[in-house]
């Protein structure tokens, strides 16, 4: 066990930013995706764990805040200096004498940026710069807070691919905050779902999907014809313009797929769609809260 949050309460003035009441833990090698809408408490959780925000409660861990590495959403460094100077200062090393650092610079294709000032870098280059510094820390637990936000599609894709490849055979635990579900589908094996500072769900991705969405889900376009065809039974929450059906058994699924093929209707099958998982977990949680308040 790397870290166990028994209880955590974070306030911003009179407002509750995070209120974790059910304990959960992060183990070595965990890849945890953190999802939730804006203001859910995702970044607050990271800030509290690395010691930037005080909290009430109890966190059990042998790790000190300085043993954790973190890529914040926005990372700023002293202006007017080259990336090389900043990098060497932060890491306390010299690039020409450090093969590990050279390898990372090469891996992230950052050689040409070393002589540039940090303020002159593009968004993707800035993120790669911090990722190199964070990876050099080789921390047992690393946080990535919206590492690809604000990047164009292509840069985002290539950056995530690099991250995926780098961590593929490593035992570091990662906690990745992202609004891009497809990134988490590739990187995360566990999910932590937050809503208004509360933990809605935490656990292994496939197990959570099974709990909130069923064994598999068929997703198709939301048209009147499709609505009539699939009926109301086994429908689960889905993004706008889509319908999602969760057949209970394999036989039911085969029958549904057969009808869709027969009617020449395009569909997608998923056993681990994070967006659907999130929507249905949130729906169940909100219904539970509404029932309690009644």
């Amino acid at each position, binding site marked *: 066990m790397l870290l166990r949050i028994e209880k955590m309460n974070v306030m911003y003035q009179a407002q509750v930013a995070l209120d974790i009441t059910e304990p959960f833990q992060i183990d070595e090698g965990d890849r945890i995706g953190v999802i939730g809408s804006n203001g859910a408490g995702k970044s607050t959780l990271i800030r509290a764990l*690395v010691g*930037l925000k*005080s909290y009430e409660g109890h966190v059990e861990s042998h790790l000190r805040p*300085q043993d954790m*590495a*973190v890529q*914040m959403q*926005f*990372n*700023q*460094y*002293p*202006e*007017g*200096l080259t990336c090389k*100077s900043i990098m*060497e*200062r*932060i*890491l*306390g090393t010299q690039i020409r004498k450090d093969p590990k650092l050279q390898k990372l610079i090469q891996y992230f294709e950052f050689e040409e940026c070393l002589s540039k000032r940090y303020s002159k870098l593009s968004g993707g280059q800035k993120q790669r710069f911090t990722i190199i*510094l964070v990876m*050099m*820390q080789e921390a047992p637990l690393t946080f990535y807070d919206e590492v690809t936000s604000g990047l164009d599609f292509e840069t985002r894709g290539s950056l995530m691919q690099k991250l995926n490849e780098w961590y593929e055979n490593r035992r570091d635990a990662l906690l990745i905050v992202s609004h891009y579900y497809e990134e988490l589908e590739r990187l995360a094996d566990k999910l932590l779902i937050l809503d208004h500072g509360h933990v809605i769900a935490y656990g292994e991705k496939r197990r959570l999907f099974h709990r909130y969405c069923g064994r598999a889900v068929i997703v198709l376009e939301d048209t009147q014809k499709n609505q009539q065809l699939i009926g109301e039974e086994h429908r689960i929450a889905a993004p706008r313009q889509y319908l999602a059906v969760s057949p209970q058994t394999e036989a039911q699924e085969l029958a549904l797929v057969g009808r869709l093929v027969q009617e020449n209707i395009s569909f997608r099958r998923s056993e681990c769609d994070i967006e659907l998982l999130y929507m249905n977990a949130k729906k169940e949680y909100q219904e539970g809260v509404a029932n309690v308040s009644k």
Partner: protein
Amino acid sequence: MSQSKIITWRKIVFELKTIGSNPFINMFGIAFPLFLSCVICRSIAGEVSDTQLVREATTQVFLSIGTIIPMATVLMGYAVSHAIEIEKEISERMSLFGISIIETILNRILAQLVYMAGSFLIYFTVGGLCGYILAPDVRGVIIYTLCIIVLTIILFVLGHGISTLCRKFGLTYFVAMVIYFAIMIFSGLMGISYEQFPKWMRAVSKLSPVTYMNQSDYVKAWLGNSYNFGPIVQAFLFLMALTGILLFLAERRERRISA
């Protein structure tokens, strides 16, 4: 990423690069005082014929305008760059890599002193080569150096306090600029000397050690002659107490924000 030694030459060099990358500091920390001193000395040399008197006057000009160096580099330069770091959460980012604010500040103080030593070396070398500065007595050099070091530390604390309280670049720049010009005006560095001040201005002026470093008899200390250090020491103590209170308020605010 913790690095064992808090103060190292490499860390100081990094801070020196940060200082040097600020064109404002280079401009107002070296070029401006040097240019101003040379212009004033040239004009004095053209007006007075007594060589000894001229050289004493030009030496005094160099000694008093030299106080602009720490005011520009430390009060303005440090306060503004620290405010930018607070505003952009650079200190926070660095702390996540294990670089504490204390470590940064300690290395920065030393870098400021190294930078100023370089500035004064250039300043006095040029002044000496132009023949504007009389050769000092060893005690005179020690006293002037001590005065500058104490002034620098006070201005550093003042700059740190202002930036920590203001927390924004714009506001810090404004407050530091007001204090910078206030010290210049009340110390008689803006063309009107202490003797020409009205009574109330003299009362304020006496509280600034720069006033005493700008008076015509300060050159006596430089030349090793007897000089009454009482008033300047009192002014230093007053400024120390004032900046100490400011630092206390700034730290209290910092703790409140962190909580």
